[in-house]
């Protein structure tokens, strides 16, 4: 069974659509700029990666725009781009075999903010009744399902900063389990004032730049956006005559640190286990990995922990690693979905996006950072690493389509070991290319 990515859609601070998005990342263009959506004057921080170019009415009808908050608007806009990219017609997505699985951290936070402010300043009677049904993380996939007429599962995975990876992972499982042919998946998040204040108060926010792995890194910069993928079974892609797939979802790793609500475990044991799971469950070995997209928030704890993971998993082999958050900011729930799309584009182009703002190597982060300028290199298999509040660790493994043997149901079900197995990798290489064209 192969799980293929056949279309992608992007709303981000550096551009809309996959081509503008990846061109900006390749150029090392930063989407981080002064915040415009709320007043930051008293907060001591002014910057974020806002999707300033996103105009809902360019993608949604007036009634759709009215019905939903900005988070769902972004998700639906990106979903429409992804469906167009996959040339997915109504006959292929309407009905019970299409599901929508999305990640987010806060969902329609702007709706709740308005309701809450009405309550605080005008009392209970000032709360607008008509706004209430627009709030809830549950609504993100519901809005997409309503808009397109899909009738399978609608599921939100509020997995904080790992939500995009969670969604892709569950989407791939739904397909492998035979519960769906097509899953519209990914994640969306908006920049919101309370969240921004919270990160300032956690002393986790940098002033103007996010500098992952740099000795003098100050922390993260928040961002927003939506990254949506069309994930489908190979059989379905072939049946509908889909365009050549962009990537294959191999395995994923998912563990919990059970250590601290905001900080990764200093030994990174859970994160190491997650990355090994992702590799093992992809039926490949660490030597097959050509590039790792780091969670790379630019905080001291996160980047040091990730460097440990790289050392433990890859040993002395210095696998190139980069953090798109240096350009996009930390888009919270949407982060790992947008970054997964960056990974897909790396598989397509052979270009590793850079980590901009990297100036001084940190001995605690002794990794091969793709510093400041994009780099070309081998690009068969990439890992998308993500960590989140709650001790969540999630890693997805994406590969060039049809490069390896399909993952059969028995291997999918029974593959708990976390020991790298290079022999498996070589045996797994597909001898001939096949499948969707």
């Amino acid at each position, binding site marked *: 069974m192969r799980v293929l990515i056949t279309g992608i859609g992007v709303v981000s601070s550096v551009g809309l659509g996959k081509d503008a998005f990846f061109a900006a990342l390749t150029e090392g263009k930063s989407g981080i700029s002064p915040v415009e959506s709320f007043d930051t004057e008293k907060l001591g921080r002014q910057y974020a990666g806002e999707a300033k170019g996103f105009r809902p009415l360019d993608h949604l009808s007036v009634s759709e725009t009215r019905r939903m908050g900005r988070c769902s608007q972004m998700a639906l806009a990106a979903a429409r781009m992804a469906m167009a990219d996959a040339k997915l017609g109504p006959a292929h997505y309407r009905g*019970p075999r299409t599901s929508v699985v999305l990640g987010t951290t806060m969902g329609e936070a702007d709706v709740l903010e308005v309701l809450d402010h009405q309550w605080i300043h005008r009392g209970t009677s000032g709360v607008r009744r008509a706004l209430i*049904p627009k709030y809830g993380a*549950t609504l993100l996939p*519901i809005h997409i399902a309503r808009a397109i007429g899909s009738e399978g599962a*609608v599921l939100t*995975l509020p997995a904080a900063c790992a939500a995009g990876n969670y969604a892709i992972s569950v989407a791939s499982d739904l397909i492998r389990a035979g519960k769906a042919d097509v899953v519209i998946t990914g994640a969306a998040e908006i920049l919101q004032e309370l969240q921004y204040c919270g990160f*300032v108060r*956690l002393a986790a926010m940098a002033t103007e730049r996010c500098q992952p792995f740099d000795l003098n890194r100050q922390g993260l910069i928040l961002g927003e956006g939506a990254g949506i993928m069309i994930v489908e079974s190979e059989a379905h892609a072939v049946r509908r005559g889909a365009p050549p797939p962009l990537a294959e979802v191999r395995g994923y790793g998912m563990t919990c640190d*059970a250590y601290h609500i905001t900080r990764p475990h200093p030994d990174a044991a859970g994160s190491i286990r997650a990355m090994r799971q992702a590799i093992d469950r992809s039926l490949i070995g660490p030597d097959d990995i050509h590039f790792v997209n780091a969670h790379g928030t630019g905080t001291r704890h996160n980047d040091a922990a990730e460097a440990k993971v790289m050392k433990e998993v890859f040993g002395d082999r210095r696998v190139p690693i980069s953090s798109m958050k240096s350009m996009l900011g930390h888009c919270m729930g949407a982060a790992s979905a947008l970054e997964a799309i960056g990974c897909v584009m790396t598989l397509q182009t052979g270009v590793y996006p850079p980590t901009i703002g990297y100036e001084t190597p940190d001995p605690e982060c002794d990794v091969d950072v793709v510093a400041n300028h994009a780099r070309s290199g081998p690009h068969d298999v990439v890992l998308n690493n993500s960590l989140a509040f709650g001790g969540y660790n999630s890693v997805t493994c994406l590969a060039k389509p049809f490069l390896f043997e399909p993952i059969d149901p028995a291997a999918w079900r029974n593959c708990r070991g976390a020991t790298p197995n290079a022999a498996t990798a070589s045996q797994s290489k597909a001898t001939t290319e096949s499948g969707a064209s």
Partner: protein
Amino acid sequence: MNPLAITGLGAACSLGVGSHAFVFDRLRHVAEQGLERATASTTRATGDHTAPRTSFDASRYPGARIREVPEFDPAQTLGDKGLRTLDRLTKLLLVAARNCLHDANIKSPEGWQSFGPDDVGVVCSNAYGSLEAITELDRVAQLEDARYINPAKFPNTVSNSASGYVSIWEDLRALNMSVSDGTCGSLDAVSCADIALATDRASAVLCGGGEAMSEALFIAFEKLGVFRAFDAVAPLGEGAAFMALEDAASAKARGATMLGHIVGYGTAFASEDANHMFFGSERALERAITLALTDANMHAAEIDLVVSSLSGMPTFDDRELAAVERVQGLRAPIVAPKRIFGETLGAGGALAMAATLAWLNGVPVAADLVARASSGAPENGGSIARGSIRRVLVTTLGFYGNASALVVAAPDLAR
């Protein structure tokens, strides 16, 4: 799906706090005493706006009725350390999780009894996150200054925080997954747990959901006007429940107590109402039920009881009853556990499962929970013979066109 053994239960609900023995005992009490008498003794706030509440000060809402966890004191279960910055949702889930782990003999007060930290995961449903935490911090930011919000409480505003704390407190290092699908979330969590177990990502999963009462939640439903409708049947409620799920064969091998087996799951969505977001889809629920029965390889006529999500909202209840009616051969009595627990949203399915396990294990069904005695019979029409329940269909009709269903079998029945 492969049958999932349910080997433990922990709950914090309108009946109180405890493991399966406590929940079963309280439900037996409800059957013997009648709903009104039994719940009056456990939910002091019900029907009396002057009674003290542990979730929020309701004195400004005369006549308000809710079902909250009576005199909820998490320190009794968890000890008094480390609770200061946690929100109510987290505490409800932690209490349910601790009870469940001990009930399943996965852990005891002395430590691990079966499995180890890397083997046990969490899949947890919640519909609205911690409104308590968000509104509290927002109030500080608006009325004082954003610089004064408490950073120790900020993580509570993140939707998966409460689920994450369960892993942290109990040292559960397999996957932790937070799920949101409104009132259907707890049943969908079972589907996610099923895949995690089937693909060997965990040997056991704490699966369930939670929703905490807060003033914001109360106001939202009061404004929507559904609260008054709840008055008649099921007021807005809160609670949390976890089941310990394991592969049936391995649960048997470790000598675990079996409370029941989950043998089928189905979910569906339909956007049949183009004008309204807030509606129940009869078609989606009918399909979810059919999928769950097919998954269980079971005919509708084999179902002995339908444990519904009927909550007193006429448009939703009518559609749920109609959906059940449309499933050929499904003539079992329909019960409404929300009359006991209230409308607990993301926890609704988990608490319905708690009641289901009691009824599968010989606890009589209270007559005043029966919404339809059998197909065609009038409401509140009769009693259900004790011990006659072997296979149960649990249904949830979501607020937005979503619907899910589970088939649950008695402990000695895998199929």
